[in-house]
């Protein structure tokens, strides 16, 4: 009897340790509370934007190429380093990191910053995902990168393209960010192409336990993106790529770039005049 109890104890300890190590990167307080709700993050992002110059990419290349990655979940940096190396080798105009870049821990943010230095001079543009916000991660994101809601203007010869980066790390854009987005979309006609990048994927191409924005928020976004003829919406979060075409908009959900992910890939967007090609590339 005592030996059996001892076995249960040992088994419980092993299971507990196993779960503990798997879940040490998950901040369960997020089930009931939020350190910085989207309203506050958006407010901080806009304040930062106002204090800094408009983000601009200037390129004479035609086509020009953007490299996008999501769900790196650093820790591991092998795939991320390959992504940066390829971006530099292929003279990409900019790289974008669409959320869940790190675990939310400060040491992972520090690792990210160290590795981004290797990408110089290719500009990089990060957006928060839900994992980046764990363990009060917004304080590091905002300290290192300033803003998670912003626009980028790509000056390509005489033409200009608009890129809108949105903070969906909390599962909703929130009222203020939506109002801001509507204002930005109303300038759509001033640009040749319009692209929207965010973390949380919109559609449930497969069954997962992760959350998408509420369906009525998606109604609004689908309606606006259709009305304003947004060309491409790129998202992450789901870890498995999928493509949906809806009206004139192509919705792309990316694979994870996480080291342990079997089908890890990043996305190459190639923009030539009004045509945008995409390609998933293994690191």
């Amino acid at each position: 009897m005592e030996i059996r109890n001892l076995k249960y104890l040992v088994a419980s300890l092993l299971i507990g340790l196993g779960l503990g190590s798997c879940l040490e990167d998950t901040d369960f307080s997020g089930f009931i509370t939020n350190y910085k709700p989207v309203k506050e993050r958006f407010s901080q992002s806009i304040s930062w934007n106002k204090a800094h110059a408009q983000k601009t990419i200037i390129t004479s290349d035609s086509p020009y190429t953007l490299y996008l990655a999501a769900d790196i979940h650093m820790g591991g940096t092998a795939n991320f380093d390959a992504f940066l190396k390829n971006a530099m080798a292929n003279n990409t105009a900019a790289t974008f990191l669409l959320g869940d870049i790190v675990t939310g821990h400060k040491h992972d943010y520090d690792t990210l910053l160290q590795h981004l230095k290797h990408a110089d001079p290719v500009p990089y543009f990060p957006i928060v995902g839900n994992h980046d916000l764990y363990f009060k991660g917004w304080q590091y994101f905002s300290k290192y990168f300033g803003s998670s809601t912003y626009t980028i203007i790509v000056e390509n010869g005489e033409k200009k393209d608009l890129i809108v980066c949105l903070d969906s790390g909390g599962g909703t854009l929130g009222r203020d960010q939506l109002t801001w987005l509507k204002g930005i979309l109303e300038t759509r006609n001033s640009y040749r192409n319009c692209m929207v990048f965010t973390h949380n994927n919109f559609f449930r191409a497969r069954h997962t336990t992760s959350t998408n924005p509420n369906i009525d928020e998606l109604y609004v976004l689908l309606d606006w993106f259709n009305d304003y003829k947004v060309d491409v919406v790129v998202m992450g979060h789901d870890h498995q790529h999928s493509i949906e075409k809806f009206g004139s908009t192509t919705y792309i959900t990316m694979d994870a770039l996480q080291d342990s992910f079997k089908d890890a890939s990043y996305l190459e967007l190639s923009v030539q005049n009004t045509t945008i090609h995409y390609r998933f590339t293994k690191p």
Partner: protein
Amino acid sequence: MVCVCIAFFHLPQTHAQLKVGIWADAGSSQIDVNGFTSVSGETVYSYHNYSLSLGYSTLFTEWKETNSNGLKVDIAREFSINNFPFKVSVFYLNKPISTEIYEWDLGVFIHKNTGNWHYGMGGHYREIRIKSKYSEDSSDSKIVEGFNLLYLLRYNIPLKTETWKLHATITDFDRFLLLQETNPMMYVGGDYLGFNNLNIFSEFWYRSAGLNNIQVNYYGYFFRLGAIWKFEI
């Protein structure tokens, strides 16, 4: 403000019942700068173990180009297998999103009452479509969600009076809104049963976003006030 109450043809047999419900919602969510209001109605004709219901909803909010919020048809049958009674309903929902976009859903739901508990589970197929007259290429005009789980768990709080009923519920759907299974809503409600053929009910709903991403955000709330008339025919 439109409420559609459709009377069904009347079969001459006994055990038939007609229920006419109307309710109004007022609340706020992240997509409404100045809040929203909604008025909905539903008529249910029951005959023996069968029932047929038809509902219509209107929504008033600044983002929506159309006030129509959905038309729903629901056919249900009560079963009892080995003294285990339950109800199965099949429904169709057509929901305008804008002048160009609409959603349609086809689903099934199984309900069960046990003591103070009411629970149920089902699923639905969802298509969000661009109307053909606004779509140049039909292959690019729809988003499909093959299966979305529907669930409801309600606890009826025991009371000493039969004039009042109170309950607390967690679910991922309302009559004219089918959320994704990972976005649960909670509401508490009460019914006043003091009138002969009339029930008055009220509910308070709370909605969140990002719960299953373990990064929960407040999303919205609304109050509901409604009445249901019952007629034996």
